[in-house]
């Protein structure tokens, strides 16, 4: 079982940081409703402090996702092949653009994802900052709470879109190359 260095980074970006963020979204939304809903218990409101820390962790995950995506993986994705290259397997963008059946994954999928994804850390950083600033008092600012919830919902939507296109891009033109990393040695039949 081997994986290339670029494949490993892609996995860390998508299945590590990105997927963890998506999983964490449902927890954040549930915790905000639990802490701030009318009739929330004192224990529920104590969870507000936990919520602040939870959102900070989510913001860190979101920033790690976009920075590894933009500055580690994207340069490999958009690398230009030397003139005369016929095998485009190491040049995912060019591979997608070489076929009318796959060009849309780049011209719509990647071109949307590369910018849309940045709405996620901006939104969740705002949510974390507001939750930390207001703490249990957030319950007394219903419009603030609604805005925080709205931004988290939009960040979830943006992360889902980016994640979907990320998965499709990996399926059609995986970012591969670099040193091979042996994960495990299998047995010959």
């Amino acid at each position, binding site marked *: 079982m081997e994986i290339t260095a670029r494949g490993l980074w892609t996995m860390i970006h998508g299945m590590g940081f990105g997927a963890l963020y998506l999983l964490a979204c449902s927890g954040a939304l549930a915790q905000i409703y639990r802490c701030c809903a009318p009739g929330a218990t004192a224990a529920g409101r104590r969870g507000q402090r936990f919520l602040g820390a939870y959102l900070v962790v989510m913001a860190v995950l979101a920033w790690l996702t*976009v920075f590894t995506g933009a500055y580690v993986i994207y340069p490999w994705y958009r690398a230009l092949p030397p003139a005369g290259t016929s095998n485009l397997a190491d040049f995912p963008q060019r591979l997608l653009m070489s076929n009318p059946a796959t060009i849309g994954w780049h011209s719509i999928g990647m071109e949307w994802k590369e*910018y849309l994804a*940045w709405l996620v850390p901006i*939104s969740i*950083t*705002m949510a974390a*900052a507001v939750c930390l600033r207001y703490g249990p008092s957030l319950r007394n600012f219903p419009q603030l709470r609604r805005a925080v919830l709205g931004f988290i919902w939009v960040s979830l939507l943006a992360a889902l879109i980016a994640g979907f296109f990320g998965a499709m891009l990996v399926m059609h033109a995986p970012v591969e190359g670099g040193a091979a990393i042996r994960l495990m040695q299998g047995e010959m039949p």
Partner: protein
Amino acid sequence: MSKDTVLIPKTLTSGSGAAAILAAGIGAFLVAILAIAADKFPSVRSLMIFYKPTGPLSGVTTCALIGWLVAWAILEGLWRRRSVALGWVNAIAFVLLLLSLLLTFPPIADLL
């Protein structure tokens, strides 16, 4: 006093929250506007290449993040001690956020 009552510190107004929300909307919108500008105008495109391997994405996102943080700092300074009409702030922030969702979608951006 009921144990369920939450005391609001006297210094805690809606201003800080409003500043964070509106700044987030501005930051998101900046990402979309700068992305469109870099796509439409070759001069902007070359100006936005801060890190060559990443191309214009590096400049677009760096400028948008700086704009977001500057807007946040300015609004925080202006509104920290004030109570702000959150209805308007939320409405503007969400319009900006939804516009940025739409404007980053290439088929819509290409119509502009």
